[in-house]
C-alpha cells in the first residue's frame, strides 16, 4: 500500500530567491535554514513522489478559464521557465511530472464527486520554483500538482479546500502500489501583493495560523471567510487554502514550525513547517 512518508508547508515568494540581498541577513539565514531542514527531512523520508498543493498566479489560469481546483497532468513542469527564471534569479529547469499518477488522481476525484479540472501544460511561477529550488535541488523526485484558485476571486471556500485535501489523502492511502508519497503545500502567510497595501505583513495573523497548525487544528481556519482572510492576511493570505488542504489530507497530524520570519523586504510572512503524525 502507498504511504504518506513526509509532509511540509512552506511559503513561496519570488523575492525569496529573486532578491536575497535586500532582506535582513539574519532573517534570510533563519528562513533559508528552515528550508534546508525541510530538505534534509524530506530526503531522509526517501519519497518516490511529491504531491504539491499549490496555486497559480494568473500565469496559467486567467480570467478566460479559471478552475477552482486543477490537477496537473504535465509530463514536466517549467520550474521556472526562462522568463520566470530572470525574475526569480533561478536557473530555468524542468521538473518531471507523473502524468499516470495524476490521471489516476483526476479520475478518482471525478468518480468521488471532486470535479477537478486538468491541464497538460503548466508554467510554474514561485509556487513550485522557489520551494523546489531549496527542497529538490537535484530535481530527482517527480511531482504531481493540485492547483487551487487562491488568486482570482471568487475563490473556493477553505472548507472545500480541506475536503479536496481529504480526498487527496484518502486517494494516496488507497493506492495498492508500494509508493512512498510526500505532501507539500506552499503559499502564505500574510502578504499584500499589488494592492494599495503592498508590503504590509500581519504577524498576528501569521501567528494565529501557525498556532492552529502546531495544534493540528485547522477547523477554525476553515470557517474563515474570504473577506476575513483578505482583511487580516491580505490577498496573499488567501493561499492558506493550500495549507488547509494539506491538513485535510492528514487528519491528526501536527505542524512543527522550523522558521517564521515576517520579511518586510520580501513583502511576505514567510514560514517553513514540518508536519508529522
Amino acid at each position, binding site marked *: 500500500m502507498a504511504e504518506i512518508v513526509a509532509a511540509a508547508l512552506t511559503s513561496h515568494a519570488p523575492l525569496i530567491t529573486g532578491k536575497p540581498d535586500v532582506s535582513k541577513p539574519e532573517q534570510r539565514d533563519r528562513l533559508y535554514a528552515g528550508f534546508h531542514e525541510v530538505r534534509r527531512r524530506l530526503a531522509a523520508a526517501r519519497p518516490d513522489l511529491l504531491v504539491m498543493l499549490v496555486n497559480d*498566479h*494568473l*500565469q496559467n489560469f*486567467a*480570467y*478566460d478559464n479559471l478552475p477552482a481546483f486543477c490537477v496537473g497532468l504535465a509530463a514536466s513542469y517549467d520550474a521556472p*521557465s526562462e*522568463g*520566470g527564471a*530572470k*525574475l526569480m534569479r533561478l536557473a530555468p529547469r524542468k521538473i518531471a511530472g507523473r502524468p499516470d499518477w495524476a490521471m489516476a488522481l483526476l479520475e478518482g476525484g471525478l468518480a468521488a464527486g471532486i470535479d477537478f479540472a486538468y491541464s497538460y501544460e503548466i508554467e510554474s511561477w514561485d509556487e513550485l520554483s522557489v520551494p523546489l529550488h531549496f527542497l529538490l535541488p537535484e530535481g530527482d523526485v517527480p511531482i504531481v500538482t493540485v492547483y487551487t484558485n487562491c*488568486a*482570482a*476571486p471568487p475563490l473556493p471556500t477553505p472548507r472545500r479546500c480541506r475536503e479536496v485535501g481529504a480526498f487527496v489523502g484518502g486517494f494516496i492511502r488507497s493506492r495498492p502500489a508500494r509508493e512512498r508519497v510526500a505532501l507539500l503545500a506552499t503559499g502564505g502567510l500574510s502578504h*499584500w*501583493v*499589488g*494592492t*494599495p497595501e*503592498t*508590503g504590509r505583513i500581519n504577524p498576528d495573523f501569521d501567528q494565529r495560523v501557525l498556532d492552529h497548525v502546531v495544534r493540528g487544528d485547522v477547523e477554525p481556519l476553515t470557517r474563515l471567510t474570504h473577506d476575513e482572510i483578505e482583511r487580516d492576511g491580505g*490577498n496573499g493570505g488567501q493561499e492558506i487554502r493550500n495549507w488547509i488542504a494539506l491538513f485535510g489530507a492528514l487528519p491528526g497530524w501536527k505542524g512543527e514550525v522550523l522558521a517564521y520570519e515576517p520579511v*518586510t*523586504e520580501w*513583502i511576505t510572512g514567510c514560514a517553513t513547517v514540518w508536519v508529522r503524525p
Partner: protein
Amino acid sequence: MSQASYGLNKILTAIARRHLLKDALTDAEMAGHALSEAERAALRAGDIGRLYELGANPYLIRRVFRRRFTV
C-alpha cells in the same frame, strides 16, 4: 478587491505571460482591446492604485508594473 474588470485583466495577463515589465502602456499596445476610457487612462499613466480600483487583479498589477512599487 472591487469587481474584476475582464478587459483590464485580459491585457495585463497577455503582458505578464510574456514576462514583460512596463511603466505604462501606449495607445498602440492598447489598440483593439475592450477597455473603458478610465481604464485606458490608468494604463497610460501606469497608475497602480487606480488600476486596482478599476478591477485589475493585484497580482497582475504587481507583475506588469513591478517597477512602480517602492517595495
